[in-house]
């Protein structure tokens, strides 16, 4: 009876988690979905404590309450204080915690089998499941730490590549599998404990090695991929604990991260393998220094020119990129768009899948600046509209607008889906300098007749345009 109730409760919490993700199909239902998620979590925690119930010492509850309170307060403060620009770092940090928690749970289960396994015996099957959860968790942790450090700028975003790297990774990977096999042969034998700890160590190590060679430009893929890993780690532990809530959730998160990785890869026309092998795309500044000799004539404009052109336009499409977030120009941008709208100009926003540093980052930044979400469109939805637009206003984006991706098979960004800003009657580029983007490729749009460059800080330029619009 008891186990039946517990089983149903875990199933219920799994279903609530599915509903939490289902809610995200629209901003209207998303908040309700989030509430379902919290409810599911509360049920899972309550059920576990109830199930572990009988004959408890009060002090173990005290410890748990302290741990939850400390973690909860810390997490809440982080969630409240974090700036939306720094969101990718926060997510990477959170992934690392899931990974580390999986490692600790696996160690806890290994050292106290009586609490986790029937008859206190770890079977070969359980050991394999647990070791996989452990290994993936450890990789998630150390990989996320590196991703965090790269996103936060603590280590260089440039890919760190050295000779024989892939061979070393392969050897370590195979060693981990061999160790799992050796541990699983006789899990209860104290002699295999050293293998268990070796799995922990090597998995941490390979996590570092795998993410280090991946360049800053590929971070959206890495963040999604680690999201996926954290799910699979949870799944491994779920099998160990025979807990349906964990298995369902782990599978949901695992496939979610995999889909996001796929979408990000497609947005850059890169294969997941080439991302993992690394070596592509460092910090934009570094790439910029190496490349870019100006060729051809550049038409530079002023804020007054831009305000005149847009003030007389019927339709303006805004193309924001990470550069907008860096200069915090989104609020000035929204102000500019409000004035344009009050003048009867139709304003829309076009978002490239890899704009920003993680999936959907740009949408959040615009939403933060009070841009209504029904003015914001994805690439496929809006790309045909550039042909009918008077102005494409590109702010802090570069590679995602480069027509070379369509025409030059030699270009490193060839095949990447791009926003067709060149089809608009006028293209305005707000950029810090004439430097190329992260891919190190010149954008020949800069030299076209229909293009006007507004060089300088995106926020300052936008504010000047706002002033000019107010005067006219």
């Amino acid at each position, binding site marked *: 009876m008891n186990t039946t109730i517990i089983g149903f409760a875990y199933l219920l919490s799994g279903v609530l988690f599915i509903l939490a993700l289902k809610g995200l199909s629209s901003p209207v239902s998303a908040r309700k979905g989030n509430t379902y998620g919290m409810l599911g979590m509360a049920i899972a925690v309550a059920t576990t404590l109830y199930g572990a119930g009988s004959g408890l010492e009060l002090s173990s509850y005290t410890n748990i309450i302290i741990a939850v309170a400390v973690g909860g307060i810390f997490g809440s403060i982080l969630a409240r204080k974090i700036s939306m620009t720094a969101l990718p770092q926060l997510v990477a940090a959170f992934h690392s915690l899931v990974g580390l928690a999986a490692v600790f749970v696996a160690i806890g289960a290994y050292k106290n089998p009586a609490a986790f396994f029937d008859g206190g015996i770890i079977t070969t099957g359980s050991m394999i499941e647990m070791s996989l959860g452990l290994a993936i968790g450890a990789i998630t942790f150390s990989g996320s730490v590196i991703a965090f450090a790269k996103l936060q700028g603590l280590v260089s975003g440039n890919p760190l590549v050295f000779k024989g790297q892939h061979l070393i990774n392969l050897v370590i990977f195979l060693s981990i599998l061999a160790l799992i096999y050796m541990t699983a042969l006789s899990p209860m034998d104290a002699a295999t404990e050293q293998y268990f700890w070796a799995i922990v160590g090597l998995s941490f190590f390979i996590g570092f090695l795998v993410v280090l060679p991946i360049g800053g430009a590929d971070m959206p893929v890495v963040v999604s991929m680690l999201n996926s890993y954290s799910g699979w780690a949870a799944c491994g532990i779920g099998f160990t604990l025979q807990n349906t809530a964990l298995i369902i959730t782990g599978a949901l998160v695992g496939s979610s991260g995999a889909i996001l990785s796929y979408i990000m890869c497609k947005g850059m026309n890169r294969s997941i393998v080439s991302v993992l092998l690394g070596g592509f795309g460092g910090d934009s500044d570094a790439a910029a220094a190496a490349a870019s000799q100006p060729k051809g004539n550049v038409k530079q404009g002023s804020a007054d020119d831009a305000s005149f052109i847009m003030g007389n336009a019927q339709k303006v499409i805004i193309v924001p990129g990470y550069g907008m977030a860096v200069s915090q120009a989104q609020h000035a941008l929204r102000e500019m768009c409000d004035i344009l709208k009050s003048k009867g100009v139709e304003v829309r926003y076009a978002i490239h*899948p890899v704009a920003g540093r993680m999936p*959907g980052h740009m949408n959040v930044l615009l939403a933060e600046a009070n841009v209504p979400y029904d003015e914001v469109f994805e690439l496929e939805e809006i790309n045909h509209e550039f042909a009918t637009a008077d102005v494409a206003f590109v702010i802090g984006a570069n590679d995602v607008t480069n027509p070379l991706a369509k025409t030059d098979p030699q270009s490193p960004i060839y095949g990447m889906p791009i926003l067709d800003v060149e089809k608009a009657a006028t293209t305005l580029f707000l950029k810090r300098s004439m430097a190329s983007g992260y891919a190190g490729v010149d954008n020949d749009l800069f030299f076209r007749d229909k293009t006007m460059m507004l060089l300088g800080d995106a926020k300052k330029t936008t504010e000047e345009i706002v002033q000019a619009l107010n005067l006219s």
Partner: protein
Amino acid sequence: MDFLSLFSIFVLSVFVGFYVVWGVTPALHSPLLAVTNAISSVIIVGGLIAAVASKGIIDLSSTMGLIAVLLASVNIFGGFMVAQRMLAMFKKKK
């Protein structure tokens, strides 16, 4: 539960995840990352089992359990709250 039942649940959940996540609007991919982060911290149940099992005695297993509970709590509270914060920003045209 036997392995086959658990594995069946796993495989079906992967499919459910696949369809549900393709249904998520791309505009909400950042909140999706935050929410998946929070729910994958249901791994807290493993930490709770280890922490409770020692019946108040602090040994390696229960310490590991407590740390796992602490880390997962950061994630649960942080993940849901940052998702909530993001979602509150998404407003329709007035």
